[in-house]
């Protein structure tokens, strides 16, 4: 009875936050409070136990990496790179699309998806305006950037919430995840770009004229004429990020120096490197929304865990009359579908409780990379499935983009849908293929 109640609260909260994203925090914090009350009243658990079960390390990493991303943004590195990309591609719509998608993939591997979008999207929208992009081209450009954002975030253990969740919960090491996930995500990204270039060809209505191209380059040169990278900000941030990556890769887990401790020390050291900016960032730019979102989620998932529901689900998965690698493929697909409905953070948090059911039968690397790829595919399915989608939508609305005929360029659910379907299908196909391969070759590569 208590299990049914707590599962119902979890599902209702997740569905409601997906339907009314503008009230996401209210819904989830209410859901967490109700879960706590029900767990207490039914004797399933207590608030103290639920709070003790929260993976605080994940929250530390979310806050710390968010602050590091703010520092990288303040260095103006990404704006300068966007200006260089326009010049390097000659503002050619074809090359621009590829450069923006590829660039977003790389940036998202280092900073979280929301920060990556906030950094890269504004100059891209200026270029879309300058080259006279039509609606179709603009939609594909923006949509591909969101998909690239999700894939880039999944390619490293620090790129986005689900990956941070994997690293922070200690189920897979930094190095093992990076070695296995990065190539898989890169292949999926390449497949999406090639499919778009050969099949969709969204630039057909935006064949840039020589005049528009020349003006686009001159104007971008003007807008970025003396925008320089602030090395005094970039240097401590980049140095500490590099140091953290090395530490994550080489410090053994048994030392007790955990991923979140490395992250905490590294980010604080970077902030001290520019003390005045660092203090201001700490006081004003902590991502409270992300922390509350995840905290509420962990409490609800913790309450359901206390009922034994996840163990039951894991037992059902383990008992399925399928080969182990097919069970993993099924879990990957389920992760994709669940993420499409509930969004990435909740799906990963819940499925992390189920995935260990396969750990005796398959290499951990295959299991968790499969889970990450499934979640990534789901994040890319619908505009509402990942937080970066609504953010991009509101940024485009605010920018007031218009096409060459002066009609407003809309970027919403329907405009994104074909891009999401294509991107999601490719990511899922590559992900399922990759886990089947990883299940075979991981032990031979020395991966757990």
């Amino acid at each position, binding site marked *: 009875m208590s299990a049914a109640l707590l599962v119902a609260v979890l599902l209702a909260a997740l569905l409601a936050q997906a339907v009314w994203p503008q009230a996401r925090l209210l819904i989830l914090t209410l859901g967490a409070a109700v879960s706590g009350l029900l767990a207490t009243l039914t004797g399933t658990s207590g608030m103290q136990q639920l709070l003790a079960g929260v993976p605080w390390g994940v929250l530390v990493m979310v806050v710390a990496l968010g602050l590091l991303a703010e520092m990288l943004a303040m260095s*103006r590195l990404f*704006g300068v790179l966007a200006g260089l990309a326009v010049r390097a591609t000659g503002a050619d719509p074809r090359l621009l699309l590829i450069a923006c998608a590829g660039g977003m993939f790389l940036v998202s591997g280092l900073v979280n998806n929301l920060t990556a979008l906030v950094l890269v999207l*504004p100059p891209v929208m*200026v270029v879309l*305006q*300058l*080259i*006279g*992009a039509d609606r179709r081209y603009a939609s594909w450009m923006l949509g591909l950037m969101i998909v690239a954002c999700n894939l880039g975030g999944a390619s490293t253990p620090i790129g986005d919430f689900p990956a941070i969740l994997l690293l922070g919960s200690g189920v897979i090491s930094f190095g093992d995840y990076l070695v296995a996930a990065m190539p898989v995500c890169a292949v999926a990204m390449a497949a999406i770009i090639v499919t778009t270039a050969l099949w969709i060809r969204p630039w057909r209505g935006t064949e840039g*004229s*020589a*005049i*528009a191209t*020349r*003006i*686009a380059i*001159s*104007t971008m040169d*003007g*807008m*970025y*004429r*003396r*925008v*320089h990278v602030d090395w005094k900000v970039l240097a401590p941030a980049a140095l500490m990020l590099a140091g953290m990556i090395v530490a994550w890769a080489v410090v053994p887990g048994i030392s007790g120096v955990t991923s979140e401790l490395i992250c905490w020390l590294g980010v604080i050291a970077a902030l001290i490197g520019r003390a005045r900016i660092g203090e201001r960032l700490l006081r004003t730019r902590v991502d409270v929304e992300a922390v509350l979102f995840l905290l509420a989620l962990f409490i609800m998932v913790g309450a359901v865990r206390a009922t034994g529901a996840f163990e039951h689900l894991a037992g059902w998965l383990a008992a399925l009359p399928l080969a182990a690698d097919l069970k993993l493929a099924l879990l990957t697909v389920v992760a994709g579908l669940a993420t499409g409905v509930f969004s990435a953070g909740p799906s990963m948090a819940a499925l992390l409780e189920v995935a260990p059911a396969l750990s005796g039968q398959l290499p951990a690397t295959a299991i968790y990379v499969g889970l990450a790829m499934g979640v990534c595919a789901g994040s890319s399915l619908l505009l509402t499935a990942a937080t970066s989608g609504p953010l991009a939508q509101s940024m485009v609305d605010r*920018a*007031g983009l*218009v*096409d*060459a*005929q*002066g009609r407003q360029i809309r970027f919403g659910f329907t405009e994104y849908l074909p891009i999401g379907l294509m991107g999601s299908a490719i990511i899922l196909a590559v992900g399922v293929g990759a886990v089947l391969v990883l299940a075979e070759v991981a032990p031979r590569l020395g991966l757990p």
Partner: protein
Amino acid sequence: MILPPGLSHAFRAAAGELGYAAAAWIFARDVHAEAGDAGVGALRDQLGREYPVLDAVCVSWLAGIRAPVRESAACIAALAGCRRLTIVGLESDALDALLPAMSGLDAAILTYAPLPADWDRVLANFDGALSAIDLDAVLARAGSDSALLCFVYGGDDGLFAPPAWLRLDGPDVRAAFRARIAWNVLPTPFAVYPRWLAEVVPTSFTTVVA
């Protein structure tokens, strides 16, 4: 000759962050490079009514003037003794010439403008020499060593300023600043109604430099 249809919105984006005149010279130069005088004529026909500063620049271009004649020395002289400067309107070329020559000057630009701009990016081009302020903060910058600088346009038949100037051209503001300087960055008469700008009288300013 038909120019690409998206140029109007491209000009809007460029003028928002570079200034009407600076963007207009870029457009005239680039269109001329690809399509010659006929292209500049077409640019004037297509966008001139909507953007009068662009129209005036095209007229100048077709008359053989290939770049703005911009003397910052007169403006620098007019600012002698000022430690604090509040700027109304944006003209990136002019500010690029002025601000490096005025070291130690506390310069701020009013972000109240009819065209959208990414002000973080605009300011990043001045390497810390320029900050942004809102209308309500202007009077806090008043004082005996403080000046207002407004970019204006137009010839003998009338002087035109960004609408923000009208918000500051009252007796309360006039008395609070040491100098109110107009810098005419396009001393050419307008052939079309100067949309986006407001007519001002030269006596609104203590000094008009060109």
